């Protein structure tokens, strides 16, 4: 049996590892279905389920949910593959930075993506302005508010993630395998087909499933960019049924189907992931990387240009909107800070300042909670006496397969039992944000703990370090970088999360993404862009701070 690093605090009994998850996730979720069962009875639930499965409109929604997620995953993957090939072969400036953009999928709130897309692909967006500038008679392209827009936004969101995952898999394959195939007479294309791709399958499979899962549970993008019932998904349907139609039975049963499918996807993903980590684990040595030259150089430049156009341009379009004012319909455009100033002027302004403070409060609260719980879970899981460790780990990661809308709806029931001004309502949002960020924070922490050399703790123990000292003096300092990354991730996720806030917030409550949502709803795109720019600024500041601290630690 492999020895694990966690040997200090971990060997002490610290209670049930699943207790925090039980409290924050499983009980509320169980509660919502139990309440439904109490109110409606098993017969009504079964009847509703049968009706749903026979309903063409539900099957159409289910079909669209699956097809948009599948198409988004496949396109993300197809666009990521050439990039992963080039990135794993060549060394070039800013490679690390570009790869770290995979964070975008996690830290950029969907509502901001929607906003950026409107500024870039919309009728008055950059793309159409450019087309009309070249061809004045042209009507431009109409992508927004369609299935295409949903897929495009999902690919925008998930391309960096796919690139990162496949790059990780590809760069762990020794370059000598490719060369061995060449020396045996295999052409580059055949080498990819026979040697590389079969070994990339776990990476490809896990990224396909993860992206599929994200798109399957996607909410804000579908709600805004879908533009109508034709492009509704299960997630939006649950929200519509419960929030607007007050049909808890139907909403609950759709949620149940969605949850079952989500958990099945999650289970498959974890299965593939465990295979992926069993394969080659060596990372590409620096000397295996080729310096940029020849044909590869041009291919890489073309790919990077595409990558930047696809990812950076929409965000730039949104940021520029925050700094530009146009006098009249066809008037000149000027640089301005008016939109930012408007956010802080009385009336409007107090709302925005409050939004920033509320967002920060939720983000800091959930970050603290995520760090503590993931450390606790990590240590618990690495104890030897955990019953069914694989199953328990699956239970910890399961929130990844549950939609935040469903989670928020389950919290809504608790919220309704609280008084209007109860401070506990804020804690509920913090709880949801924590549970959304927890699986990934926990996973990266545990992976890091496994990578740490066992002999460090053994050395400390041989020098007389007791469990607590071992934890504070050896384990915790070594885990600092990954804890910072997890903190940033939890912070950014909470700063941008809109689904739970949308469902749980009281009329007076507002956070930054909710303010963006409302400003967009009132067609104040400049104001929304200014608010979005502020959100990016806060998240980037946190990101740079983390990188600086991690860099200082490495030195």
């Amino acid at each position, binding site marked *: 049996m492999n020895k694990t690093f966690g040997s200090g605090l971990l060997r002490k009994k610290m209670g049930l590892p699943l207790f925090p998850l039980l409290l924050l996730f499983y009980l509320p979720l169980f509660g919502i279905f139990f309440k439904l069962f109490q109110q409606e009875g098993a017969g009504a639930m079964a009847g509703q389920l049968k009706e749903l499965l026979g309903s063409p409109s539900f099957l159409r929604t289910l079909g669209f949910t699956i097809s948009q997620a599948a198409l988004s995953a496949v396109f993300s993957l197809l666009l990521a593959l050439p990039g992963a090939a080039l990135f794993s072969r060549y060394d070039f400036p800013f490679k690390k930075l570009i790869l770290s953009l995979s964070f975008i999928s996690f830290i950029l709130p969907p509502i901001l993506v929607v906003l950026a897309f409107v500024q870039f692909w919309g009728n008055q967006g950059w793309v159409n302005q450019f087309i009309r500038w070249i061809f004045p008679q042209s009507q431009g392209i109409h992508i927004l508010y369609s299935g295409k827009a949903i897929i495009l936004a999902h690919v925008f969101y998930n391309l960096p993630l796919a690139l990162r995952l496949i790059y990780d898999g590809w760069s762990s394959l020794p370059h000598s395998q490719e060369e061995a195939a*060449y020396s045996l007479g295999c052409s580059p294309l055949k080498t990819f087909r026979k040697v590389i791709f079969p070994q990339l399958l776990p990476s490809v499979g896990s990224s396909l499933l993860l992206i599929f899962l994200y798109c399957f549970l996607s909410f804000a993008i579908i709600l805004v960019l879908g533009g109508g019932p034709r492009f509704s998904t299960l997630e939006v349907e649950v929200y519509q049924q419960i929030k607007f139609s007050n049909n808890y039975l139907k909403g609950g049963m759709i949620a149940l189907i969605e949850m079952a499918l989500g958990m099945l996807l999650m289970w498959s993903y974890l299965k593939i992931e465990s295979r992926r980590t069993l394969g080659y684990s060596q990372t590409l040595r620096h000397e295996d990387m080729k*310096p940029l030259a020849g044909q590869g150089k041009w291919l890489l430049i073309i790919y990077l240009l595409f990558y930047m156009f696809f990812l950076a341009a929409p965000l730039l379009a949104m940021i520029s909107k925050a700094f530009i004012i146009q006098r009249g319909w066809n008037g000149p455009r000027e640089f301005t800070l008016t939109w930012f100033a408007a956010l802080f002027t009385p009336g409007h302004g107090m709302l925005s300042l409050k939004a920033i403070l509320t967002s920060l409060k939720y983000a800091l609260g959930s970050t603290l909670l995520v760090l503590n719980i993931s450390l606790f879970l990590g240590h618990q899981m690495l104890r030897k006496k955990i019953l069914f460790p694989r199953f328990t780990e699956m239970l910890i990661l399961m929130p990844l397969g549950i939609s935040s809308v469903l989670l928020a709806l389950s919290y809504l029931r608790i919220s309704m039992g609280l008084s209007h001004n109860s401070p506990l309502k804020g804690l509920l949002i913090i709880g949801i944000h924590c549970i959304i960020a927890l699986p990934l924070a926990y996973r990266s922490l545990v992976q890091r703990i496994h990578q740490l050399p066992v002999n460090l703790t053994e050395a400390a123990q041989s020098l007389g370090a007791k469990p607590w000292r071992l934890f504070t003096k050896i384990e915790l300092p070594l885990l600092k970088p990954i804890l910072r990354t997890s903190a940033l991730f939890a912070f950014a996720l909470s700063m941008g999360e809109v689904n739970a806030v949308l469902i749980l917030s009281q009329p007076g409550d507002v956070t930054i993404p909710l303010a963006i949502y409302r400003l967009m709803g009132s067609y104040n795109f400049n104001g929304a862009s200014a608010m979005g720019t502020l959100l990016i600024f806060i998240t980037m500041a946190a990101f740079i701070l983390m990188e600086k601290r991690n860099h200082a630690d490495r030195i």
Partner: protein
Amino acid sequence: MLIEFNQVRFQQGDFILHAHLSMPQGKMICLLGPSGSGKTTLLRLLAGFETPQQGKILLQDRDITHQPAWKRRLGYLFQDLALFPHMRVDENICFGLSMDNIPKEQQKMRLKELLTLVDLEGYEKRQVQQLSGGERQRVALARALAPNPACLMLDEPLSALDASVRERLGRHIRKIQQYQNLTTIFVTHDQDEAMRLSDYIYIMKDGEMLEGGSPEELYEKPVYSWTAQFLGDGILLPILAEKSNKITTVWGDFILEKNEDIEGLTWKKEASNPIKKDRILIRPQWITLGRGNKKARVLSREFGPKGYRLEMQFKDQNFILYSQKNIEAGQWVNMECDKVHRLRCL
């Protein structure tokens, strides 16, 4: 000649490799040198994994400088073996054959032949992860041999193995090479391994081909002092005066053998490596104890498989000798040098 490197120049970052040499058919040729001397780079140039900026690489008088690796069909055994982990032993070995669209029946026959050659009969259906280090090495060797390459390249093939497996497998590779009369080029930084296994050795240093010759030639009559020291123990004495074939050193006068013509052995470009101060080489085997008029002192004594290892001193020069006689530390012993060799300093 089978392989020729004609004024080849290859640069990658700060590293520059110059190669101008030829390799004969059917021999075991070793590229020997310290880390970073360019041995693997030379092999990769021949394999087609790198392309030189200048010069030509010829295989049987055919220019292959710009031919892609998959068209050269030269066998290559990688340091990390590069076995395909998703394929079984038989699939790995037959990979090159399937690239040539060889019929399945013929592939099976060749597989059987190769498994016998590398002593792995009955292993065909095993996963490569289930094999030991030595077994994997032999699978990789069989895979490289399968398509009957014109030449086999081995990049530090034994470096990851423990001593006993390493020696056994080294002999195995040598036997296969001799049995098949296959031109084999292997890279190593292990002097003993190079001398034991090869017909011919090229010494490489800082991207330059320093000199080449049979193991005996290079050990006994190297051109450069660097080679002499790199290949084994030896005493290097500065030349104080030289007249005809008589050389004067701090140890006294020595008469060079008649055929000690270093001009004919010169490999290096004189312009880039001017002669600084030449030396003479005395290998420990060339010294006889208990004879002659040179009195040396034994500083320390250790017992080992080669006999007694004596650390000795003569005229402020410390050196190592091996003796079958047990001589106590502190004793004075007479000694005589039977042979010396003149070196160029590098």
